[in-house]
Structure formats: structure tokens, C-alpha cells
């Protein structure tokens, strides 16, 4: 009997020790907790979530189940789940533009996460603007998205090309400062007989097309003299998408479509990256993934020859208030935070909210997110100061000069005074759908740029009235970082 009691005591002690050891490993301890995250189909973003999931599992002993949906299905899946207030997802990853639609169903970020070293490390453009909705934080950036310019340094530094270019256009071949120069360069390198084309952009409906168009237009419509008036007049909520700045942007976007590979009209961003990495084009615009993929020798034919710069700009910008072109003493670069970078949030209906926010903390920590940012195909681009400051981190994929240019373009774009924010508005899909349809017609030559933009503006104004002009105006001003209108 005594022996049995002694055995039981020893066993209990051993178990208690083991448990305390396990607890020491799992900090905080989320053993038995499984979080479900909604993501777009990998590798983009889903692989970054899995990377974060592995780290979180090591740290907390919890599990993360990443459920993937095709890009076009992600919004309906999340929206359906949120509006039904079910607990299908503990976390949702989504585009910032969808935030206004999702806000009523999301929990606020815990206050303790909104301060400290890691918090201050997030670039202000994300921390103070994209992550904020009506003064509150409902989501965390897990990716930084701004359109930048990518080019082939081997072509741009070739003396023969430089001489020929200068002889033809009268100025030096270099990363373009204006969109006219961008089109000149594309035209110069348009050599289908040699398998080389000028540029690659997305033109396919449903293929991230309209962000590329917005990037062109941002240079002519994001006027620092009348901030926040790129998409709508922030005083009246009248659509601005058919003003002369947008017309110029669309004309140049259409011109770019004719200076790309033959299939360019069917390009989504994936095809843009393939064309750049395949050495098919001399230049391109797009998200930071382009530079990372093009630098990767496993995926690219132009590894070691990748240059980056900010998007071209303009010295003339349309003023939506005065209805005139404002002339500036020098060219203003036109960086555009296209898409704005994936956000991750915790639904109110989620049953594991504390664990979910803890996962967000791990996923977006400088270490884990830094690793994701340098992984080609993760879909994560720099959004922390530490991402762009750590040149050593990037030396794994870039040469020193490539890294300097790439990180410089990212950092300068995000921190530019005149950086244009993407549209974030309730009913976002309704607004962008008509843009996609009319862009398709304009690109196919079925309608003129002005007529296409007039049709967009008409539908935007109709939608604004249907959704409630005052409500939409308030939301738009909040999205553009403008104070509420009295």
C-alpha cells in the first residue's frame, strides 16, 4: 500500500513538473486552441500566414489553420461570414479597401498592442492612416503595398542604348521622372522581333487592373493644394474620375497597353511579374513583389539586373476645386499606395479573440514579417521601418545596389509627402466594378477615354446617392485622413 502511494506521488510530481515545463515553453499557453484564418490562395499572403503560424505554434503551442480562397472569392466569403455573425473565422486577412464594409463586425485592437517599440516601427503611412478607421484601430497591416517602378539595369546602362535613346528623344536614358518619359522608354525598347517589349502592366478585368490605372492617374489628380480630392471632391462627394487629370491618366494607361507583349490585355499582376522576371520587358510598374521575384535567380532571367525607383510624376496636377491645372516648379513624384497592403483583423464573433490578437502580434513582429518580406512569393512587402533599414536582411536576395534602389523606392514612396492613398469606401466593389468594365471597353477601343470616365463618374454618383451621400462623404473623408465635415 505504502509502495503504491509512493508510486502515485512520484508520478503526480513528474506530471506536474512536465506540465510546468510545457507551460514554460508555451508562453502564453494556447495549447488546444486552433485559430482559423481566411486568406487568399497561396503562395501570396497564405504562405506568410503559414510562416507566422509556425512561429506562433512554437511560441504558444496553439495551432493556426489557414483557409485559402481565390482572390475573387475572398471578399464574398469573408463578408458572408461576418454579416451572418458566425464564428467561422477567428481572423480574416483582407484588402484595406474592404475595411469600411467590415468595420461593424470587427473587434478593436487591444490597447496594449497600440504602443511600444514594435508599434512605432510600423511606417506612419500604415499605422496612422491605413490601419485607422474613424479614429480606431480595427486591423493590423501585414504587408506594405505601394506601386513602384522596376527596370532592367543592363539595358539602361548599355552605352549603345543610352546613345540611341538620347539621339531619339533628346534626354538621357534613366528611370523616368514623368509618365511621358515612361512611355518614351517603353516605345524605345518595343522590339517584338527580338522578344523584347516596352512595359508590362495589368490590364485584365479582375486582374488588379484598376490599381495600375489609378497609379497613372495619381500623378495628375492627387493635388497637394486640395488634398484628398483624387477620387471624390471631399466637400461634395461628387465623383472626380472624369476630370481632365483622370483623362490624361487613362490615355497614358491605354498607350502603355500598346507597348507591352501581345497578350498584355490579358495580364493580371502575376503575368506582369512573369514578363519582368522573364526579361520580356524593359520596365514595369507594380507592387514590390516584382522586384523580389525578378531578383530571385530561381525565378528570374534578369537576376542581378533589377533597378527600382519611385513612380513617375508630373509638374501639372488638376485641381478639383478651382477646376484648373496647377503648375508646380518641379516634377512631383506620384507614389500611389495601390491596394495599401493586406490587413489582418479579428471578427467580433470570434471565440478566441485574445489568442487571435496574440497571433497577429507574432505574425507582424519585425522578425517574422522581416523574414516574410525577403521571401519571394510571400506577397509581403516592406511596411516597417526595420524592413527597409536592414540592408543586411536584403543582401540574401539583392546585390547591394539593387537592395539600395529597391528599399529606397519603397521607403521614399511610402514617406513621400504627396503619397496618394487608395480609395476606401463602403460599397467598394460596386464602385470598382464599373471602373473595370469601362476600362475594358476603353482598352479594347470600344469607347473613348472621356466617355469611359464619364460612365464611371455617372455610376459613382448614382451609387453615392443610393448609399447615402452624407454617410459616404464622412467615410471618404475618414479614409483620406481628413477631419469630419461640420
Amino acid at each position, binding site marked *: 500500500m505504502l509502495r503504491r502511494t509512493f508510486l502515485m506521488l512520484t508520478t503526480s510530481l513528474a506530471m506536474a513538473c512536465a506540465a510546468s515545463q510545457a507551460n514554460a515553453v508555451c508562453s502564453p499557453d494556447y495549447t488546444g486552441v486552433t485559430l482559423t484564418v481566411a486568406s487568399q490562395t497561396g503562395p501570396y499572403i497564405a504562405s506568410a500566414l503559414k510562416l507566422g503560424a509556425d512561429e506562433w505554434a512554437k511560441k504558444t503551442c496553439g495551432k493556426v489553420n489557414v483557409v485559402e480562397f481565390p482572390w*475573387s472569392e475572398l*471578399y*464574398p466569403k469573408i*463578408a458572408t461570414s461576418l*454579416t451572418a455573425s458566425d464564428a467561422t473565422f477567428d481572423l480574416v486577412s483582407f484588402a484595406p479597401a474592404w475595411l*469600411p*464594409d467590415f468595420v*461593424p463586425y470587427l473587434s478593436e485592437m487591444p490597447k496594449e498592442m497600440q504602443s511600444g517599440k514594435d508599434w512605432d516601427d510600423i511606417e506612419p503611412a500604415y499605422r496612422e492612416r491605413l490601419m485607422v478607421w474613424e479614429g480606431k484601430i480595427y486591423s493590423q497591416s501585414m504587408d506594405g503595398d505601394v506601386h513602384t517602378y522596376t527596370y532592367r539595369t543592363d539595358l539602361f546602362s548599355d552605352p549603345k542604348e543610352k546613345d540611341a535613346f538620347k539621339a531619339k528623344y533628346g534626354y538621357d536614358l534613366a528611370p523616368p521622372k514623368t509618365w511621358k518619359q515612361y512611355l518614351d522608354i517603353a516605345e524605345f525598347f518595343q522590339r517584338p522581333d527580338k522578344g523584347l517589349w516596352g512595359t508590362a502592366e495589368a490590364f*485584365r*478585368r*479582375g*486582374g488588379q487592373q484598376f490599381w495600375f490605372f489609378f497609379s497613372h492617374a495619381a500623378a495628375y489628380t492627387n493635388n497637394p493644394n486640395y488634398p484628398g480630392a483624387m477620387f471624390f471632391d471631399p466637400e461634395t462627394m461628387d465623383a472626380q474620375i472624369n476630370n481632365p487629370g483622370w483623362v490624361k491618366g487613362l490615355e497614358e494607361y491605354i498607350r502603355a497597353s500598346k507597348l507591352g*507583349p*501581345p*497578350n498584355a*490585355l*490579358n495580364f493580371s499582376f502575376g503575368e506582369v511579374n512573369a514578363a519582368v522576371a522573364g526579361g520580356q520587358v524593359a520596365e514595369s510598374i507594380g507592387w514590390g513583389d516584382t522586384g523580389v521575384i525578378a531578383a530571385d535567380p530561381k525565378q528570374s532571367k534578369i537576376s542581378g539586373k533589377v533597378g527600382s525607383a519611385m513612380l513617375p510624376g508630373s509638374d501639372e496636377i488638376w485641381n478639383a476645386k478651382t477646376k484648373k491645372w496647377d503648375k508646380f516648379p518641379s516634377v512631383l513624384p506620384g507614389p500611389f499606395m495601390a491596394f495599401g497592403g493586406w490587413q489582418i483583423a479579428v471578427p467580433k464573433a470570434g471565440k478566441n479573440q485574445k489568442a487571435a490578437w496574440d497571433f497577429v502580434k507574432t505574425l507582424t513582429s519585425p522578425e517574422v514579417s522581416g523574414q516574410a518580406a525577403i521571401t519571394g512569393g510571400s506577397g509581403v512587402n516592406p511596411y516597417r521601418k526595420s524592413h527597409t533599414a536592414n540592408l543586411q536582411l536584403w543582401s540574401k536576395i539583392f546585390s547591394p545596389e539593387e537592395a539600395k534602389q529597391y528599399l529606397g523606392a519603397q521607403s521614399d514612396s511610402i514617406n513621400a509627402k504627396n503619397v496618394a492613398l487608395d480609395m476606401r469606401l*463602403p*460599397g467598394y*466593389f*460596386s464602385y470598382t*466594378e464599373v471602373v*473595370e*468594365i*469601362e476600362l*475594358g*471597353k476603353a*482598352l*479594347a477601343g*470600344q469607347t473613348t477615354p472621356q466617355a469611359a470616365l464619364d460612365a464611371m463618374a455617372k455610376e459613382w454618383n448614382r451609387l453615392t446617392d*443610393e*448609399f*447615402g451621400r452624407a*454617410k459616404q462623404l464622412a467615410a471618404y473623408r475618414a479614409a483620406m485622413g481628413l477631419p469630419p465635415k461640420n
Partner: protein
Amino acid sequence: MMRNDPIKHVFIWPAVLVVLAISIFPLIYSLTTSFLSYRLIPPIPPRVVWLGNYATLLQEPRFWNALFTTTLIALIAVGLQYAIGFGVALALNARVPGERLFRVALLLPMLLAPVAVALVARMIFNPTMGPLNQFLSKFGLVNLPFLTNGHWALACIIAVEVWQWTPFIILMMLAGLQTLPEDVYEAAELENASAWQQFWGITFPMMLPISAAVVFIRLIESYKIMDTVFVMTGGGPGVDTETLTLFAYQEGFKKFNLGYTSALSFLFLIAITIIGVTYVALLRPHLEKRR
């Protein structure tokens, strides 16, 4: 059990309730919703607009364009499927060598998921990397805009539909052909009727009832085309290849415009009913002649 035995209700009502629950109630709910202005995102409280959604849709050029595109795809695709399918079924029925192998091979496309077929088709029709354009470029036809020009894109979608669903027609027609009586053909042979005369005088008329049914099924199915278009063109360029179901999907699951989408669904139902009724009315005299 007596005819008026109340116990029958115990057996009947559960089935009736199940049918009501899974079929009739959603239909009624959807019909009710079609009379409302009702958006889930951004959330707008439902408001009765009676026939407002229907009136808006009927004045919407995009609706008519989608109806026209769907009809075009359905009519051309089903027409080609029937002609090719009947021809192949006749050949297989003639006991050609390797008939079994052909039969299995020809049925394979039908067994594939339309999404997978569309994905493969998208690669084949790729102007720069697709094998089709590489092949055509040898004949001087370089970089044809298969999926970026409205007319070409429609033709590609029809081609994929024909490729995938002709086997269904082959299967049904072959089954029909194998039930035809041999003695009629023997009598025709004695009368020295040519193969062509046998086809028009015997095979085609006797196959008319099954042809009518097969074409009707395919026609209705073709009107519901969605996945192929979604993957291959996304409805573009512009709305050149947008079908009714894709239009409804955009309105319902992208814009969450529930009232409008419900009205669109009922207009779709009405259009299909009209087409079905017209089809049956046109064929009835010919079918009744066969009785």
C-alpha cells in the same frame, strides 16, 4: 389501409414539409426579396420598391447584353454539339474498329470539372505562350487575340463548351441509336434506299424525340454557363462575354445587392421558361406526327 385513413397524413406531410422547406420557401423568399431595395454591403435597410428592380433591370443595357451573349453561346454551342455529337454517335453505331476505345476517349471531356477545362483552355489560348498560337504562327497567323478581343473570346468559349459537352450528346444519341429496330433498315435495304435516304427517312425521324430531349437539356444547361466564362475571360473584355449567371454573381456576391439580384434571377427564370415553352411549341407538331 383505407383510402381515407388519416394515417396517410403521417407519411405524406413530412415529405411535403421537406419539399416546402428546401424548395418552395426559398423561392418565395427570393421572390419577396426581388420587390425590395436590399443591400447587405454597405448595409442598407430593406425598402419596398415593388417592381422597381425589374424596371431598372429591363432598362439596363448590361442585362440585355448578358441575355444576348448567353443566348448566342447557348444556341451556337448546342447547335454544334448536336451536329457533331449525332455524327460521332452514328459513326460509333456503325461498329467502326476500335469503337470501344473511341467511346471511352470521347466521353472523357464530360467527366472533367468545367473549371479545370477552362484553366487548361486559358493556357492553350494564351497568345504568347499558348501552344495554339505557336502552331498558328507557323502559318503566318501571329498572336491572335483569342481572349482579349470580344468576338474571339466568345468563339473560344463556344469552342470549349462544344469540346466539353458534345460527349453528352454522343452518349445519349448512341443509346438512342442502339434501340432502333433492325428490321426497318432491312426493309429499306430491300427497297434499295441509299444511306442518305435511310438517315433522313428512318434514323432522323425516329431519333427526333430523343434529339428533342437532349437538345432541350443542353440548352437549359448552356444558359447556366458560368465557370468557363469566369475563368477564361471574367466576362471581359468590358462585358463582351458576360453571361446572365456571371452578371447575377457579380451583383449578388460581389456587390451584395440582394433585391436586384433576386429580380435578375426571376427574369432569368422567365427567359428560360419562354425559351423552353417556345422550343416545345415549335417541336410539338413534329413530335406528335411520330406518335
